[in-house]
């Protein structure tokens, strides 16, 4: 038998565990940073720079070396090297200090954007990942997936046209069509609008908007506004937004729309034995999850009854179209009803 003091061996064991945790801890471990470091390879930097230039151009902002360095979080020196490579590849044109995309550069940028949005769509539709994580995951994958892979992925998902934030997904030739809508900060009092798109950068603002229950497809009414704030009503609640936050939300004005600001009930509000009519499944419920609910017959107008609770109070069993279906509370919350 190996003769080592048990204290020593235990010490070594726990040390190993701690080291393993330090290395492999998701999103904080050394392995993560190592991968991230490697990600700053030339290809990644070039693609990120193209995306940034495209983004600024579409917002009619001027792209400079400084804006690239700032956005990609690299030194000005490195940024200038990247721009030189981009120029060599005929992806950008330099005009004094201004950097603009060539046609090729634009197509390349759109391809990267396509992969990014397709992947966000995949994460939203098929996986249980939270919306906060979609963007970061897609940032990694956009540089890894080939165009062929993207085409296959797109075909498998039924060639989606919009990503979960409401952004259009370009076709594989880079073409797309976009109903830009208006920014929420420009909307007059009294108008009813539907959210088309929520900007997912910067993340801090996006996170707060999501937490406040904003999602593409939601219908809201503007009830008050001042120079700093805009007050909107939705689902029986009033939410105050700073104009900066509101400028991250694009909306479409709904003309003939009756808007009721009653507190909208969801399935979780229903008590055992009670029956209600389904208004709709909230647009935030997407992909697989949404199709399951639709398959169960949970469609607008369907009648639904609480069949029974379970000992742990979650999930709850509902009777819909003569079938008993168990829904977890986080699903039931997404089914809007009226009693």
């Amino acid at each position, binding site marked *: 038998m190996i003769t080592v003091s048990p204290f020593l061996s235990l010490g070594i064991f726990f040390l190993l565990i701690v080291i393993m945790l330090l290395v492999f801890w998701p999103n904080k471990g050394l392995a993560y940073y190592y991968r991230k470091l490697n990600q700053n390879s030339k290809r990644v930097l070039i693609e990120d720079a193209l995306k940034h230039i495209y983004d600024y151009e579409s917002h009619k902002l001027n792209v400079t070396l400084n804006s690239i360095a700032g956005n990609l979080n690299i030194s000005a020196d490195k940024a200038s090297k990247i721009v030189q490579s981009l120029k060599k590849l005929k992806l950008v044109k330099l005009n004094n200090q201004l950097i603009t995309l060539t046609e090729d550069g634009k197509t390349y940028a759109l391809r990267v954007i396509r992969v990014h949005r397709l992947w966000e769509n995949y994460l939203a539709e098929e996986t249980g990942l939270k919306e906060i994580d979609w963007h970061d995951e897609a940032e990694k994958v956009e540089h890894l997936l080939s165009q062929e892979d993207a085409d296959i992925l797109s*075909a*498998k998902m*039924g*060639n989606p046209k919009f990503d979960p934030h409401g952004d259009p997904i370009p076709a594989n030739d880079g073409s797309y069509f976009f109903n830009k809508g208006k920014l929420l900060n420009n909307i007059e009092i009294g108008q009813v609008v539907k959210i088309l798109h929520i900007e997912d950068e910067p993340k801090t603002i996006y996170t707060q908007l999501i937490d406040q229950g904003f999602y593409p497809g939601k219908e809201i009414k503007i009830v008050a506004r001042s120079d700093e704030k805009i007050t909107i009503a939705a689902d029986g609640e009033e939410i105050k937004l700073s104009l900066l936050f509101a400028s991250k939300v694009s909306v479409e004005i709904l003309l003939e729309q009756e808007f009721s600001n009653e507190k909208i009930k969801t399935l979780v509000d229903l008590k055992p034995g009670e029956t209600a009519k389904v208004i709709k499944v909230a647009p935030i419920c997407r992909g697989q999850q949404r199709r399951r609910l*639709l398959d169960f*017959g949970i469609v607008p107008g369907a009648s639904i009854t609480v069949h029974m609770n379970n000992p742990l109070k979650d999930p709850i069993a509902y009777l819909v*179209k*003569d*079938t008993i279906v168990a829904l977890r509370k986080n699903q039931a919350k997404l089914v809007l009803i009226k009693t």
Partner: protein
Amino acid sequence: MKKVNQNCENCPVHNISNLVKLGVDMVGYNYIVALAGNPNTGKSTIFNNLTGLRQHTGNWPGKTVSRAEGGFEYENNKYKLVDLPGTYSLLSTSTDEEVARNFILFGQPDVTLIVVDATKLERNLNLVLQILEITDRAVLSLNLIDEAERKKITINERELSKQLGIPVVPTSARSKDGMEQLLSYIHQVAVGEYVCKPYKVKGYSKKIKNSIEDLTEKIKLIYPDLPNSKWVAIRLLEGDQEIIDAIKSGEIGNISVTPNDQMKEVI
């Protein structure tokens, strides 16, 4: 249920002895029958009844995992029975639904036998209406009719048949009731004695109706013989790659209007 049996026995077509269960032997078949339906409706039990095979059945939605095939002989015709995965719908991108959808569309079965749960007819009709958008030749097995009776649910099967435009047979696969009539209708539809006039969905909401109609017109210009151009239009609007490819390759033009082409080839 008992009433149905009595009627059957008086009816000259009734002759279960005509059924020869062929198990996995499917050599030289004359007709292909696709077996479709929601999960947990007794689809596999019907499959077992007709072919004499023993697929696992159970009181769980989604027990049948792989596609099963078997054969049977009836009235001197050999049939190949293909058990499709049980699905609630044919509209989404899941593998099961793709398999079922593509088989009914491109496999061109001579008859699609749709099994529904009589106790949950409304929900099951969702799938039935979708299948009837794709194919013109279908027979409906109104299964678990004994359970429906026990739950005091009465279904006017004549009216249902009139509404859907296809034969409807109340069955109870567990006790093998209604199998004779089912076979007789499969036979009639397969040889063209019974011509179905399937129900087509009418209630598409205003918002999408125009798009569907415009696209259907365009498809008809290119493929005038396509029997299910509206369904193809809907699939195009859903972005179904399989359909886009089939249109590009012209494969979609091979889908025929006239039944029994395959039979003529065989004979």
